[in-house]
């Protein structure tokens, strides 16, 4: 199995405050990883650093995606190389329609691969097909991107975009939060449908419930800027029952 993502000893800080303090993580093609951990432990920070957000400074360590050094790449090229981050809080963008934005995004990806832009008909057909995957209403396409969308609609829209861009590594930051029970099933079904032996998914979540639908191969606990425990899906069940204190205590003892 080749490793799709390889994070080694990653340290990152914001405004001189170190948030990530040596993260190690290897994700192989075909796998699903779950990252859990208390609020403020650095999960979203890890996702942002992967996506190349400038506010964070990487002070140590390395990230390889498909063997390519991510740190060398702009956020857009990380996307072109197959990384997709579904944001915990998708930004509202007034005046830019979802359809128009996606047309640009898809064609930028195609240009990077040396492909011609999609003609409008083919693009529309592709959007319709992918919207079905997350049961999204086509009326959203003409609305401004995320503007006035409900919490759940924003999350669905993220997975719809993921379906359009077909990433090799998808990082889903609390995509389950804000979804009602039916929407959770639909969105999880969409994510599963997009799985292939050549791509991988990292889900950041607080709830075991999501993992009933998107079954992880590995579950990690991120605490205080480090992955302090990894295990199989039973770890998520144990966390659901016992919370995080026992891990914090054990980690404190080890340290």
């Amino acid at each position, binding site marked *: 199995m080749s490793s799709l993502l390889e994070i080694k000893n990653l340290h990152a800080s914001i405004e001189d405050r170190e948030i990530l303090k040596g993260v190690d993580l290897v994700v192989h093609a075909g796998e699903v990883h779950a990252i859990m951990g208390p609020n403020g432990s650095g999960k979203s920070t890890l996702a942002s650093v992967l996506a190349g957000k400038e506010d964070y400074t990487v002070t140590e360590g390395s990230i390889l995606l498909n063997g390519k050094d991510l740190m060398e790449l702009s956020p*857009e090229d990380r996307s072109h190389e197959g990384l997709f*981050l579904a944001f915990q809080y998708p930004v509202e963008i007034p*005046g*830019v329609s979802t359809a128009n*934005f996606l047309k640009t995004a898809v064609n*930028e990806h195609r240009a990077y691969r040396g492909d011609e832009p999609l003609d409008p008909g083919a693009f529309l057909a592709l959007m319709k097909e992918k919207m079905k995957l997350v049961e999204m209403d086509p009326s959203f396409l003409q609305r401004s991107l995320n503007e006035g969308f409900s919490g759940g609609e924003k999350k669905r829209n993220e997975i719809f975009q993921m379906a359009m*861009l077909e990433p090799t590594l998808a990082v889903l930051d609390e995509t389950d939060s804000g979804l009602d029970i039916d929407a959770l099933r639909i969105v999880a079904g969409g994510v599963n449908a997009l799985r292939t032996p050549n791509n991988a998914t990292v889900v950041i979540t607080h709830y075991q419930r999501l993992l009933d639908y998107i079954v992880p191969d590995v579950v990690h606990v991120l605490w205080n800027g480090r992955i302090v425990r990894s295990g199989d899906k039973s770890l998520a069940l144990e966390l659901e029952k016992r919370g995080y204190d026992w891990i914090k205590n054990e980690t404190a003892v080890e340290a």
Partner: protein
Amino acid sequence: MSTLPLATNIQDAFDALATAMYGTSAEPFHSARKAAMDGFNERGIPTTRHEEWKYTNVMPIAAKTWRHVQNVWSDGTITDHVHPVPGLQNAIGIVLRNGIIHLTGSTIPDGVEIMPLSSASVEDVNESDLHDNPFAVAAMALSSEGVLVRVADNVQCPHTIHVMVCGETDDDGILLTTRVFVSAGRNAQVDVIETHHTLGGADLLSLGVCSAVVHEGARMSYVKIIDDASALHHIGQLTARVERSGTFASHSINLNAGFVRNDAQIKLAGELSQGFLYGTSILDGVQYVDNHTVVDHMVPHCHSEELYKGVYNGASAGVFNGKIFVRPQAQKTTAYQSSHSLLLSGKAQVNAKPQLEIWADDVKCSHGATTGQLNEDAVFYLQARGLERSKAVAMLTNAFAAEVLEKLPHGELKNHLLQRLADKLGAAGL
């Protein structure tokens, strides 16, 4: 203080005009112009100590010498000089070539009158009401020519009226003055577009006044576009009076202008009348646009709405000053104003000042002014989906600015301007 060259130029031009008019100087027109000249001398050229000119320093303009022209034009037809504006091919064209009128385009339909001011009667052009802007008053003093457009009661003018203010510049820099009168009769409807064009590379100072009257139940839109005139210095005043149940909308669109000061004033004089003021400025380099607006709610049950947006790159600068008056008797007024500016460069600058004077108590009024940079989280969101940073910025900037242009009533012209906007902001094809 010695007299500023511009003030001297204006006085000399007036004297020359009076001499040329010898024998007709007792005419009411000329006495009105004389009153305007006195008005200009009273007001003088404003310094930045003047409240209405606090941010806009006209001294660099006033210190230069300008030569007033009314009747000079090079050879060739107008189409050699002015590119046709998409969406206006079927318009009724009124070309003011260095102040001289020339009609082009569609034939004038029944119920619509277009005439040079020299043919208009004094009742048509009520000059007693002097505008506040001293430069507008100067334009009144110097314009022996101009155009009057009158749409009769119940007539819907089928074509847009396109006024092209064209100035041909030589090495000296010329001073151009323009007067436009538009009147929409009861339940009539008319759309007017004023575009500005400079030919030749030297500086041009263009002063303009437009007086609009919207009679009962009539609708009028007045769109002013300055887009191929980087050598242009323009100071203009538009005043619209709206009678009962009438609607007036003004758009001030500045895509490529050297220096612009636009005063747009709406007097809501009849109940149930409505006024809309829109503005879009997309500037770079050292371009400068100052929009001063006034909405005067004189009677009850009127509605006004105002939205101005500006995008400032390079060392460009802008001013927005928006006054709303609600007179004591103007109960049940609704008046909304907002201005938003996007600064894309550290050297760009904006001053925005809303001024509400509300003397009635049963009203709904609001105002909001924002000045800021692009939302970096939004830029990052687009980048994370594969858009190059420059394209992400272009897409967001374009979306910000397009909101006002979307309100234009003209389909094809709107699309043309949206395209111009996208081109200018590097968002074409996004």
